[in-house]
């Protein structure tokens, strides 16, 4: 498997930058879960624990608690990623944790996302006559409104993904959330920047642009008007140490899967 060429300047590869940005969303002592098809979250959680969040609780989609991940596999449920886990915790138990409000951070994907943070992982076209049958939203509809922080990662920032209106609301954005769930935080980390919804209208705004990219480039590749946070800045780049951590764990380059 190719470990890919340089997709960014500064000699920082895009997966590494996204993984570092995702890791940065995790605070120490937080309880974090990853799900299916999640090599980037696996690596982000591993990086966070080895750097600024040594005391986080790491719950693997493969059910291991605090495993020592020493290799990444095409399946995020591969039990080899439970190596040296301290115990097992089933996904239904993790979902109970979410219902109790004790799961702090979850990583989810999206095939489409709109300005309110609604995500679509279900169908392109009409649900009863789909042009493209997508895989399904997995835990999105359940976790997006109730998890204190949900991080959506998107490896291809384009107008096909960042759309004016999603074809189907799989995961709920702020305009589709029940009142009780409005305060839970949503962060979008794409191949171009980091977006949040920290404004009075709860619409997407650019929090940071990745090194080598610009606000204009992000806006041009987005199918709706993107706001810009007052304190917008460049996304912090990962250190050599962090990059080595990623490359030493993901020797097979599974992190590149979603970028091809």
């Amino acid at each position, binding site marked *: 498997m190719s470990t890919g060429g340089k997709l960014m300047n500064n000699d920082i590869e895009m997966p590494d930058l996204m993984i570092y940005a995702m890791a940065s969303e995790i605070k120490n002592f937080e309880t974090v879960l990853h799900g*299916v*098809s999640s*090599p980037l979250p696996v690596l982000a959680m591993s990086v966070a624990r080895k750097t600024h969040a040594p005391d986080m609780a790491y719950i693997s989609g*493969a*059910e*291991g608690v605090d495993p020592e991940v020493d290799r990444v*596999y*095409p*399946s*995020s*449920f*591969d*039990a*080899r990623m*439970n190596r040296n886990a301290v115990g*097992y915790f*089933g*996904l*239904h138990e993790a*979902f109970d944790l*979410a*219902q109790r409000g004790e799961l702090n951070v979850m990583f989810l994907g999206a095939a489409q996302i709109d300005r309110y943070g609604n995500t679509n*992982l*279900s169908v392109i076209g009409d*649900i009863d*006559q*789909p*042009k*493209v*049958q*997508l*895989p*399904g*939203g*997995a*835990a*999105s*509809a*359940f*976790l*997006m*409104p*109730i998890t204190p922080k949900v991080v959506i990662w998107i490896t291809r920032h384009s107008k096909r993904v960042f759309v004016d209106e999603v074809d*189907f*609301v*799989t*995961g*709920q954005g702020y305009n*589709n*959330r*029940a009142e*009780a*769930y409005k305060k839970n935080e949503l962060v979008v980390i794409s191949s171009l920047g980091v977006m949040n919804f920290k404004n009075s209208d709860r619409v997407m705004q650019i929090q940071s642009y990745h090194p080598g990219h610009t606000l204009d480039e992000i806006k041009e590749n987005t199918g709706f008007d993107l706001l810009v946070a007052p304190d917008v800045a460049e996304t912090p780049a990962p250190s050599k140490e962090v990059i080595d951590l990623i490359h030493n764990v993901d020797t097979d380059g*599974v992190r590149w*899967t*979603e970028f091809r």
Partner: protein
Amino acid sequence: MKKVLTSLDEAARLVRDGDLVTTGGATFHRAPMEFVRELVRQGKKNLSLVDREPAMDFDLLIGAGCVAKIRAGMLAFEGLGLAPNFRKKSEAREIITKEGACQPIIAGFRAAAMGLPSLPVKGMLGSDLLDISEEIGGYKQVEDPFTGEKMIAVRAIQPDLAVIHVQKADEYGNVRIEGPVYEDVIKAKAAKTVVVTAEELIPNSEFRKMPEATTLPHFIVDAVVEAPKGAYPCSCFNYYDVDYDHIKEYLRVAAKGQLKGYLDKYVYWGKTDE
């Protein structure tokens, strides 16, 4: 305890056309592939399949024409790609796809496992998934009788049959699952009939030496089949890892619309005497 050891052929005959079936494991791990292959060989029709996050087991059954309806939280081949037959037949409306979300599907199994007609879940409000009506695992918005909190009640999902591939079983139906258990205990309790395929049969005395390792006691299980390599090409923890190359071969063949060749080679080969 009564003996429930049987053949793969007999166990698969417990599945009737039109049944609601769930499979153990998750994506490529402890999927009951040998049982799935036997269902294909027996030419089952119009099955309804339900699971949280299935993968090749469901896609193969769909590709082989055994399936009328799918309900899943997500059905894909993880980093390897989309589920080719699921996608093709769903887009062609040859199967009915009712997307669930993981938690409601688990809640539906849990309700059945607890003997309850339904179970409430949080979240879900605002998702278009709530508009996809479904007889099993269907949704209703309710208010908690004490707090008034808005909840989504999920109707119980009681599969006609759950088939679970495990590491170890005895002839009475006692089961030991090693490593991740997923929702397999919940599914087994939820289903009307439970078939277990096992890498290895071990004596009942081995269970009695380590009762804390017993995952399912015999009275939950209706049939046990010895099936070494029964999850292949998926993994079986402590026995073998996923054969990612085999799964990629399946994807390549399916993408070219040549599933028949795959079926001849891996499903029917050596079993064509019937």
